[in-house]
């Protein structure tokens, strides 16, 4: 038993340090990070800044987000620009579930982070992270296009080095 067990342990060690698999994973992560395709989902005022980021001056495409895809099947990044209310929440969740893994969420603007100026309202949810796992929070009302680009670069860093930050929902899951 001793020698077989030892052999098994050795094989496991070899597999864990298998250089080829780790490299492919790193390559895939690099590829994902440099070609995030956002979903067109403009909700409120932040969406206009998102549109401006896509325009000629701030040019989102030079960071790999060449196109905004309208279909959730073809997108891997969901930027949530604006306040989500109770009527819209099930639809946002449904669209998120329709996206294929691996998928990422950026909460853009104060309304998506915590409800923003509408936190006391009867209609608005206090932040998108109450039902979606958010990767990057971009504060601002609305955040400038440069802030959105910075958020995207932070997300890229997070994808390539996943150990840097753990994605959490506000209920801790």
């Amino acid at each position, binding site marked *: 038993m001793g020698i077989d067990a030892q052999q098994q342990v050795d094989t496991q060690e070899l597999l864990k340090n298998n250089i080829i698999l780790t490299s492919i994973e790193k390559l895939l992560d690099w590829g994902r990070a440099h070609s995030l395709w956002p979903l067109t989902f403009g909700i409120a005022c932040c969406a206009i800044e998102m549109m401006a980021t896509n325009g000629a001056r701030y040019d989102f495409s030079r960071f790999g987000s060449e196109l905004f895809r309208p279909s959730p099947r073809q997108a891997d990044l969901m930027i949530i620009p604006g306040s989500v209310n*109770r009527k819209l929440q099930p639809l946002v969740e449904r669209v998120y579930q329709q996206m294929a893994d691996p998928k990422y969420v950026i909460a853009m603007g104060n309304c998506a982070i915590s409800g923003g100026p509408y936190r006391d309202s009867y*209609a608005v949810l206090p932040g998108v992270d109450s039902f979606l796992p958010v990767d990057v929070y971009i504060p601002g009302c609305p955040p400038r296009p440069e802030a959105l680009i910075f958020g995207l670069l932070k997300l890229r860093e997070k994808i390539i080095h996943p150990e840097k930050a753990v994605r959490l929902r506000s209920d801790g899951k």
Partner: protein
Amino acid sequence: MGNNSMAPGLISKISSRYFSMTILNDQHTTKVQVEENDLIYLMEELKNDPDLHFDLLLDITAVDYLDHYIVVYNLFSLKHGHKIMVKCRIEHENPSLITVSDLYPAAEVLECEVYDLMGIEFVSHPNLHRILLPDDFEGFPLRKDYKS
């Protein structure tokens, strides 16, 4: 700033015909108040009389005064350039009012909004439904006694 109020002769011409109508004192615009039973006749006259010709319904809204509601209609005449604010007082208990959407199709969405947020039922409205809030929302948020 221009005033766009109605000529005083015009307004007294109509007020004599409606028992419950009062002309409110206001320096900014012509304001009248009527009771429920006279409202639809007044609105018909405001729209159809050629001297009045209020063809554009700008807005319908409502205010909760704790023991009654006031429903406010703002009308404008493209032909004559005058405007009027018509206020109608209704009960606080089970508030309801006749719709004006037969006269002004613009009222269809405006009355739905007042129903949705204030809970005032508009009788004979073609499609009264919750327009801004989810269908399963409980309560009427713009009422003063609404607790979220």
